[in-house]
């Protein structure tokens, strides 16, 4: 064996060890605390896919936690992802580089717990916190009787309207006062049609597009009194006749009345993909009505503080119907393999507890899931109280181990109804059979 050969082996070994060291990453326990943390604390990482203005508030809460904690120092990291897309999390967890706390859409907790991504929080004593939270939010944070998350914020949806646009079109807006109860869908249609405006044959203002923003399948399905899941048979029921009716009225026929292509061109023009919040067509005066959530109060205050708008109930099919809305929201979880799970849990208790939720509610106008905060009216200035009042009767999405899949199936059927390419009953029946096939291996759920 030549000398060069031996040297070559050494060089190669050195290279491999450098690569392995680089891949190994650094251990969190020996990392020095970040600026703003107390000495002697151990670092924990917190990942969120939220963007400004919400992520700014999350950073404030993290900073406040770091100032007061004697044991844990949290580093917040913004990562790519969405309500149903957690590719970054799953790949990181699988390779042992996941965070200690992750902010997860609460309706997917059951799904991610079933997949094995989340740590069961029973050993931390999370169950003892159940009574602090509103019951629907706590139910969403559990899977098969075990807690996998601490609920963070919630929200409800309502109908926002532009007083200026409606009045300019000669609409009497007194009927939209929430004290008169929910408006009917026919009433809103008549008002909205007066606002529609075209230039050169294309819409530049549309009164109401029911499926824009938060006008989801779930929204209209609940408004029409539909049920999305039958717990006794462990089957999803998107083909419930009431949901089919909602799809027919609010998606298929509404789109047809406006002109299927014309309304799509309007959406592509004024609400293109990845649009920044401040260019939202409601905020820029191109939509008269929009169904959206309470967080938009915060966006309006940030981007268009002088907006002349009002908020009322989502319209109902018949006069005298009970108003309906649904509540969503996020939660805090500890992914499998977290290196500083106990530090992470300490942070979770803080951010999802009273101190964190108080700041988040004040700064972003989301709704807290802590019972004691919901009765603190100082947290809900102006229009926010209306959303809080809706909460006791709000629906929530069924927490299913195939929740993301079901959502996509409902959306595909919604898209077909909006484009008038398939009959809602057929499209929803297809969604039912596809989702039930995926759901079946998890049954029974309790």
């Amino acid at each position: 064996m030549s000398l060069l050969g031996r040297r070559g082996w050494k060089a190669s070994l050195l290279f491999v060890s450098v690569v392995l060291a680089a891949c190994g990453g650094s251990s969190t326990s020996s990392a020095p605390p970040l600026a703003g943390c107390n000495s002697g604390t151990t670092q924990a990482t917190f990942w969120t896919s939220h963007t400004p203005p919400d992520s700014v508030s999350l950073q404030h809460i993290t900073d406040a936690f770091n100032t007061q904690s004697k044991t844990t120092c949290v580093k917040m990291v913004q990562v790519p992802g969405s309500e149903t897309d957690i590719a970054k999390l799953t790949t990181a967890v699988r390779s042992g580089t996941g965070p200690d706390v992750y902010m997860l859409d609460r309706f997917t907790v059951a799904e991610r717990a079933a997949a094995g991504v989340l740590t069961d929080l029973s050993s931390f004593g999370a169950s003892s916190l159940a009574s602090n939270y509103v019951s629907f939010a706590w139910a969403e944070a559990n899977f098969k009787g075990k807690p996998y998350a601490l609920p963070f914020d919630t929200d409800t949806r309502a109908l926002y309207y532009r007083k200026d646009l409606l009045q300019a079109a000669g609409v009497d807006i007194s009927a939209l006062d929430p004290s008169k109860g929910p408006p009917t869908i026919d009433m809103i249609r008549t008002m909205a049609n007066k606002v529609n405006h075209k230039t050169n044959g294309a819409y530049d203002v549309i009164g109401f597009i029911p499926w824009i923003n938060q006008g989801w399948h779930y929204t209209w399905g609940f408004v029409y009194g539909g049920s999305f899941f039958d717990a006794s048979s462990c089957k999803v029921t998107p083909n419930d006749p009431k949901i089919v009716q909602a799809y027919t009225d609010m998606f298929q026929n509404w789109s047809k009345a406006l002109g299927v292509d014309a309304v799509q061109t309007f959406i592509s023009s004024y609400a293109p993909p990845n649009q920044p919040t401040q260019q939202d067509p409601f905020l820029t005066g191109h939509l008269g009505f929009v169904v959206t959530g309470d967080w938009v109060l915060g966006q309006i205050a940030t981007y268009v503080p002088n907006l002349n708008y009002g908020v009322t109930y989502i319209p109902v099919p018949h006069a005298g119907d009970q108003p309906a809305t649904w509540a969503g929201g996020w939660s805090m979880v500890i992914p499998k393999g977290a290196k500083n799970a106990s530090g992470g849990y300490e942070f979770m208790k803080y951010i999802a507890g009273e101190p964190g939720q108080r700041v988040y509610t004040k700064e972003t106008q989301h709704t807290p899931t802590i019972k004691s905060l919901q009765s603190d009216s100082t947290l809900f200035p102006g229009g926010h109280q209306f959303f809080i009042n809706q909460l006791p009767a709000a629906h929530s999405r069924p927490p299913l181990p195939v929740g993301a899949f079901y959502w996509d199936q409902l959306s595909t059927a919604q898209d077909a109804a909006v484009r008038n390419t398939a009959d809602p009953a057929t499209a929803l029946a297809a969604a039912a059979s596809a989702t039930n096939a995926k759901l079946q291996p998890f049954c029974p759920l309790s």
Partner: protein
Amino acid sequence: MIAAPRFHLSKADRRNLRTAAPFILPWVIGFFAFTLYPIGYSLYLSFNSYSGFGDATPVGLANYQHLVSDPLFWKSLYNTLYYTGLAVPIGLVIAIVLALMMNQRVREVAIYRAAVYLPSILPLFALTFIFIVLLNPRFGIVNYLLTLVGVPTINWLGDPRWTKISIVLLAQLGAGGPALIFLAALRAVPSELYESASIDGAGPLRRFRHITIPLITPVILYDLIYGTILGVQIFTPAYILVGGTSGSAAYTAGPDNSLLFYVFYLYKNAFQYSDMGVASAMAWVLFVISVLLALAIMRWSRYWVHYEVS
């Protein structure tokens, strides 16, 4: 220099091999650990139900059977082949045209080459964001220019008939890469051939048709195969174009799932539906499709590729 394959190595050869082996070892290890092993593992996973965590449960051919009965699988396959069938030939023509432009004997050709190549080095996601603005049906410059010549408004990204064509257009911004390869091929064509053809009275079109094209056919073949393999893996533009939370496009992959490309659906199965088994099965089906397409192109190429002069 690489020697022709031999089974008997001389002493010097063996010594050279011993010296070289440690230097290539990291890459050999990398290939086995990070390429070959995942490929084999995905084949194993395609016969299992696996969320990415916990234990994989053997399910036999169930994942493949699921794909056959899944309308979205067929839709994603259709979308992908539709896109590839358009993007590859169009991309080929554009790359050759760009290469011809880069090959002109003008003084500032270096500047033109840089300008033509520039979009190819921009990240695809940045180009996609720019494209969203350019293709806005009401405010975009593309529709503005089209209306000047009397074309009615096209809803590029909101109408399922146009979404894939939009992505084909977007892909052409990356034509600079293949154009460079064609430029190299053009410059390798012996100038004597052009000279003698000119003396025989052949005009520029005839020279292009009968000299240039036949002599660059090996590169055309390479581009077709390479473009097809990349084309069936299209992902990034669709992933960005369906982003956002307002409008009805969110949560469907483009209007009427018209941008649900194969790899995008694979990604959704793996990371949104936590179904690594189905995703792995899709990866293997795509692998087989890619091999079949490449073989078909190779076989077809016997009729039109000329290797005589090179």
